[in-house]
């Protein structure tokens, strides 16, 4: 279980304030919210890459507030994927295992298994720069998942994919979550991602959480309106086209 309590992070003129956010073990939480409201700062704080001035972060019962990133057991897939360009796909995925001292033979086996699960086994000897965006995204996901993190942080992981790849990635994420049962915090601007993937939806605005609820519950709130507005416009265009 991940718990964020009384978190306060001031950066420049911006303040992030999270009174309480809990992600149960195995839960898939999708975080929505307009641009610049602190979603990425929250993700970085949980990963230990930003130092909040106040508050506590509990990871599986351990107070991780003062732990450096390498001791939190949290894995990150940033929007840019941030693959290691000077390593093969195999070495990218194996990196976390190598640091954990996993023996060579087991390492190979675990890399092979996760690569097969994500359909990238044929790419293992390639360099990241030779991969398509969708392939890079899956490598980043494999690199994060192979270490069996206590929490998987995904910061707009699908936003630079074309619609077909995004739909594929959505299904893949859902399948992976079903099979591996990891705990996830997934930041996105897409209502479709939220509804398809989330056990729970959180919505942020102005540096604070406005609501944490079920996907269905979220649709009832006023925060869902801008997201539904987009769909309404599509429907309207279709109606006008038909009439």
């Amino acid at each position, binding site marked *: 279980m991940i718990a964020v309590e009384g978190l306060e992070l001031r950066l420049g003129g911006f303040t992030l304030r999270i009174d309480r956010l809990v992600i149960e073990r195995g839960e898939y939480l999708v975080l929505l919210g307009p641009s610049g409201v602190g979603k990425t700062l929250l993700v*970085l704080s949980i*990963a*230990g*890459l930003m130092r909040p001035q106040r508050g506590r972060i509990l990871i599986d019962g351990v107070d991780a507030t003062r732990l*450096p*990133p*390498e001791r*939190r057991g*949290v*894995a*990150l897939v*940033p929007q*840019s994927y*941030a*693959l*290691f*360009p*000077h390593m093969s796909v195999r070495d990218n995925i194996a*990196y*976390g295992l190598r*640091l*954990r001292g996993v023996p060579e033979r087991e390492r190979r086996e675990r890399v092979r298994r996760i690569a097969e699960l994500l359909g990238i086994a044929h790419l293992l000897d390639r360099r990241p720069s030779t991969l398509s965006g969708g392939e890079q995204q899956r490598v980043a996901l494999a*690199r*994060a998942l192979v*270490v069996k993190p206590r929490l998987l942080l995904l910061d707009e992981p699908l936003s630079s994919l074309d619609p077909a790849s995004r739909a594929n990635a959505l299904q893949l994420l859902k399948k992976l979550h079903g099979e591996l049962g990891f705990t996830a915090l997934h930041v996105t601007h897409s209502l479709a991602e939220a509804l398809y993937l989330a056990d729970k939806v959180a919505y942020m605005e102005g540096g604070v959480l406005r609501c944490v609820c079920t996907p269905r519950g979220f649709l009832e709130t006023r925060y869902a309106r801008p997201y539904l507005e987009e769909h309404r416009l599509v429907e309207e265009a279709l109606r006008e086209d038909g009439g």
Partner: protein
Amino acid sequence: MSPVERVEASLVLLYAASSLLVLFLLIPLVSLYLRLSPEAMARVFGSPVLASQVRDALATSLAASVASTLLLLVLGVPLAYVLARREFPGKGLVEAVVDLPFVMPHAVAGIMLLTAYGSRGLLGPLLQRAGLRIEDSFLGVVAVMAFVSAPLLVDTVKAGIASIDPMVEAVARTLGAGPVRAFLDVTLPMAWRHVAAGALLAWARGLSEVGALLVVAYYPKTLNILILEYLQVYGLPYAVAVSAAYAALAAAVFIALRRLLPP
């Protein structure tokens, strides 16, 4: 005049200005080798005394510039990292201090070093107690070279690190790497071209220094100092003979640099 003609007229100007500068830069290189007299060559490199002077001076130049570059790598890469990645109060001031040697006239740089680390300088007594002395010593040559070439190394490496997505290192951290490990595994390999280019630039800059050396450490003589001495004592042909050899070495460095520099 039609617009097209006007464009052509300005093109002529453009090419004229460009070729003038290129020629101005190229002619000295050609003339150096035209002036090279086999006789003077034979007299310099045939004489056991002079040849060994040149050999010693070259050894001093190479050893000191390599030592200075290694020193700058050890101290300058971490500094470049801090400047590229961290924000802190007074950062602008630190950056100004790092770039200072760049704008200092060379003689002034030498005087500054003397007042700071010379035996009668600010930290002279302290250094003396440690048995260190910069006046007319190999250490002094290294100090001078490191001083004048530090900005080149730090700025080049800083630009390289700044161009790397910080999230790459961040991901390495979350996967279990401590800060040093993440730097060595990820940032350094990604910035190696800039590190190599910075080191080569710093090396070449150290090798070419003469002004501050005249002030701080005339001895042990570097090749630059020896060339000046030959010019004064034996005349131009001798200076040309040594310079021609040195220019060839410098050109080799330059070619290596061009191949390493990021396109």
